């Protein structure tokens, strides 16, 4: 349970800055999700906080003290890796007990037994405790890997796409479970994901990274409703935000080059005519792929819509977002 603060942290690999002058404060007990495409610096940020990488410049504070001189072990963080998570030569039980047996914690055997049992219970892997780590399915491995972070009650949890390899049902269950564990323990959690639902449902704050820069930091709703740029706007939303020439629907604010329309920003029934290209029935929603003056547009329709390819439907924007020619938000 601690606050994490990054102050002007830069980390270069060769000539590219994986993390570029990043400053960010992660409040005690916050659940922060980092979003960004591959190579944006999400994993490097976690590794810097964990102590697996040393920053070229800048400082990192955990609970108010600079940790640059400390080893990963001394920082008391737990990390769930995206890959290669389990020690293959150990059983599940030994994997879970591994952090507790470390010279730093040096836990008593009865206590190890109890903690391992508790965590296995939570993650529903009790029946696999004596299996070799290699004899598990991908989902089970990842649960053990999360379990290895949970047994220790560290100051900070760092998780690098921990749920990405799990099937949808398990992912939904663990999402709820992780959120519950995090709020029960009151621990600070930094979480990397590509999954919008994970970001929106679990995070107290979302940080959006672009080529090593932290471009926006705020609550999930702020990021979704009030993005600072097209880049941020495209990180969240399913289907993605539509970006079209600003004047497609009539006069735009001065300097606007692009209009950004989330599916719910498109009002159907009046406005400019568009032709239906494709209709996707997803069950709970129906997606309409429209063509408007040669531009593709995706929006949602009533699940039971009778629209079919070739039909024409009129659309107009409602509370759209405007961006300048550099992609920055202006209205």
């Amino acid at each position: 349970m601690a606050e994490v603060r990054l102050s002007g942290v830069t980390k270069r690999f060769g000539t590219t800055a994986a993390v570029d002058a990043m400053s960010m404060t992660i409040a005690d007990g916050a659940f922060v999700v980092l979003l960004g495409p591959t190579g944006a610096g999400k994993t490097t940020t976690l590794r810097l906080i964990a102590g697996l990488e040393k920053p070229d410049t800048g400082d990192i504070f955990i609970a108010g003290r600079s940790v640059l001189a400390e080893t990963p072990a001394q920082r008391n963080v737990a990390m769930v890796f995206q890959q290669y998570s389990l020690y293959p030569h150990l059983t599940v039980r030994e994997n879970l007990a591994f952090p507790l047996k470390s010279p730093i914690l040096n836990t008593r055997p009865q206590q190890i037994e109890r903690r391992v049992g508790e965590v296995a219970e939570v993650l529903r892997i009790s029946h696999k405790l004596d299996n070799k780590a290699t004899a598990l399915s991908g989902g089970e491995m990842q649960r053990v890997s999360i379990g290895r972070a949970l047994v220790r009650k560290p100051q900070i949890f760092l998780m690098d796409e921990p749920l990405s390899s799990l099937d949808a049902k398990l992912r939904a269950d663990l999402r709820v479970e992780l959120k519950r564990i995090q709020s029960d323990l009151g621990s600070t959690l930094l979480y990397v994901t590509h999954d919008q639902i994970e970001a929106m449902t679990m995070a107290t704050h979302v940080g959006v990274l672009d080529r090593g820069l932290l471009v926006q930091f705020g609550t999930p709703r702020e990021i979704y409703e009030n993005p600072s740029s097209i880049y941020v706007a495209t990180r969240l939303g399913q289907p993605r935000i539509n970006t079209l020439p600003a004047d497609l629907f009539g006069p735009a604010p001065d300097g606007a080059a692009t209009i950004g329309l989330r599916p719910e920003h498109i009002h159907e029934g009046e406005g400019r005519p568009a032709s239906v290209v494709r209709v996707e029935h997803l069950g709970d929603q129906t997606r309409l792929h429209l063509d408007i003056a040669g531009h593709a547009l995706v929006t949602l329709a009533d699940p039971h819509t009778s629209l079919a390819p070739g039909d024409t439907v009129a659309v107009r924007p409602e509370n759209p977002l405007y961006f300048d020619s550099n992609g920055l938000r202006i209205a």
Partner: protein
Amino acid sequence: MSGYSITEPSAGQKWFAGTLVAIYALVTLLPLAWIVATSFKSPADSIAYPPKVIFDPTVEGYVNLFTTRTRIPADQVDSLPPPANFAEQIVRDQGMMITGPSRYGARFLNSVIIGFGSTFLSIFLGTLAAYAFSRFRVPLKDDLMFFILSTRMMPPIAVAIPIFLMFRSLGLSDTHLGMILLYTAVNISLAVWLLKGFIDEIPREYEEAALIDGYTRFQAFYKVVLPQAATGIASTAIFCLIFAWNEYAFAVLLTSGVAQTAPPFIPTIIGVGGQDWPAVAAGATLFLIPVVVFTVLLRKHLLRGITFGAVRK
């Protein structure tokens, strides 16, 4: 898991491959079988022409291997006590008596000390060096790796004279330590290169996980890397041991007594009126056993890829 299919070889192909393997096995095992057979022949049978494939087996060769003997002087024939055991009986039948143990046991022990000692040292140093080369930013890493390999670019015996002089100045001639150091020096380049390959294959995420789990770098190496490198260490150890165990030229040159290994000793076994071939063959047969046992013990490790399957794909 990517889907792929393997076409089952046809019966003809299997038969052909099986025949090739059988022929190869026959060719390579025949000399070995001949040595083992010779070790159980009598001296007369061992040099019989045409060679005898069927013969009366005897352990005379083994008895001769482990003993020194002398012809019984005519005046003592009657005063000797009866033979105490079967070995003495065999020697008496030749008109000889046992005067003491031979030096084979001591030479064999030297081989064990030097062979296993240098293998242990090669693996110990090789693993640490390979780990450093694999994981750390070592200045001039590629050049150093090349330099290490370059020590094997000529036959080691090419530097025999400098080594001989060096050993004499340093007092290492005919010492166990000298031979262990020499074989380690020859083996270490092989060990570093092989082990670096194996350690490169172990994802560093495991160590990083251990570092975060509260372990030091060395503990992570010991508890996480080493068990996973066991397969590589086992196969490298076999290669190192086979070289050190069988090495002949340096052993002839640099050892004569105290530290002499079995390979230079075995051919010097002389019997009555010439080479005692059954004893030589017995020495060679026994000398094979430790390497065979070592290889069979570690075979399990050679075949088992313990890190496979732990990686989420």
